[in-house]
């Protein structure tokens, strides 16, 4: 299968402090990859580096083109939607305005209106809350909103930063089943960063295990799941 995202030798640092030491990983077209690892391994930094939110070196090929020199806004315009750590809610705007923001780079009003309906179809709770100030939504609802907002871009690739963080197990299950449907029905590829390895390995095709800025293991999700040593040492379950 051909690759949608191909990252080679990705380095990134905060000031003088180097966080990523040359990562290689990929996301297949239509596939789901996951980056696993403990706190401080560099997972969030990796996503931020992909989107140009921090300085980075290395090559990042998206649909064959190197995007490592591009600004965040331009990468988004290529169809990369980032669901950031902390969800990035526009707390002062309404739920629906948040969703409209997700489609800000698109032209056709008719298509946007259709996708808004689709977003409410995926997440009916958001329809109930459409005119409510988004900052007053619950944590789970805000996570749904963040994912729905990302979908409003009609992305080719979604980067999800710990979507399960702080959510009740039941909501996590629901969210991941929606992500699976989105992946299958809309052919949106995904790169999911998670600490909750058990759930995400059920969903992903490929997994990359990160430890303090290096990838220490990679393989299919099944291989990682079945590797007792890796599970005990890095994934803690």
């Amino acid at each position: 299968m051909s690759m949608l995202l191909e990252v080679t030798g990705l380095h990134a640092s905060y000031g003088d402090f180097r966080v990523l030491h040359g990562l290689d990983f990929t996301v297949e077209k239509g596939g789901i990859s996951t980056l696993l690892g403990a706190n401080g391994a560099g997972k969030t930094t990796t996503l931020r580096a992909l989107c140009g939110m921090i300085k980075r070196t290395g090559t990042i090929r998206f649909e064959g083109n190197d995007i490592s020199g591009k600004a965040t806004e331009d990468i988004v315009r290529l169809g990369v939607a980032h669901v950031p750590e902390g969800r990035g809610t526009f707390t002062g705007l309404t739920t629906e305005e948040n969703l409209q923001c997700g489609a800000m780079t698109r032209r056709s009003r008719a298509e946007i209106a259709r996708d808004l309906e689709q977003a409410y179809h995926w997440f009916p709770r958001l329809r109930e809350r459409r005119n409510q100030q988004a900052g007053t939504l619950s944590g789970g609802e805000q996570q749904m909103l963040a994912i729905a907002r990302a979908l409003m871009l009609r992305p080719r690739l979604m980067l999800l930063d710990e979507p399960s963080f702080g959510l009740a197990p039941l909501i996590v299950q629901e969210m991941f089943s929606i992500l699976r449907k989105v992946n299958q029905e809309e052919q949106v590829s995904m790169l999911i960063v998670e600490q909750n390895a058990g759930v995400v390995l059920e969903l992903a095709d490929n997994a990359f295990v990160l430890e303090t800025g290096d990838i220490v293991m990679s393989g299919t999700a099944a291989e990682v799941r079945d590797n007792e040593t890796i599970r005990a040492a890095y994934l803690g379950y």
Partner: protein
Amino acid sequence: MELLAQQLITGIATGGIYACMALAVVMIYQAIHHLNFAQGEMAMFSTFIAWQMLAWGVPYWLVIPLTVALSFVGGVAIERLVIRPLGDAPVLSHIVVFIGLFAIINSLAGFIWDFTIKPFPSPFGEGSQFGGLISNHQIGMIAVTMAVLVMLFLFFQYTRVGLAMRAAAENPASARLVGIRVGWMIALGWGMASAIGAIAGILIAPIVFLEPNMMLSILLYGFAGAVLGGLTSPTGAVFGGFMVGIIENLAGTYIPEIGGELKLPIALFLIVTVLVFKPTGLFGRTVVQRV
């Protein structure tokens, strides 16, 4: 009774100007979290440009849109050339830059057009309505400021660019992640603030007369309005502007100790009182956030 009505109308008319200045200040404050002390000087300079065009014989109906357009471009240029390079510099650097802008624009206006006081014709002509209760200029001031404020409200509430500007001001990082060009949204905000200031300047110039220091007190009242309404709330700033206009006029008329001379301290008194007792202002909100 007639005196009260007259003072109320005067208060609303000047209050509209304060509301415009307050809104200009708040728009920029929302985007960069600094108070633009040079807002008034920018408006004054715009008014001089209008005066110059009038002096060259350009008809009034053409002068206003031209001045507004030039002011918009000027505001964008100031953001691009002066404010943007500052980036995340500490608050003192911003204050110094704003004071610098203030001094430069003020002196430049004095240098070009000198410091003598010039009369400025009203776009609405002389005369008054309702038996002298309200002058034509006051009617024009109220109508124009209301129209400007309503248009801005519609713009921010119902257009995509308006939504993008609100999103960029509220959460720049998230705005970038949905593809909004945050830098340009801030520049657009500066342009619009500058254009609003130009309208305010042209409307108030026939009353306070044209000179490089004409906007000094106006901006103070504008600040008072913004603080009263809440620096985080454009609606509040507009409301605050009108309130300050009305309070200023009524206090000046009915409290003999204040009179005409002590009107300006009312603005300062309001600023201090609000900051001491309700720092978020009447409409300012501490944003509700659940984690």
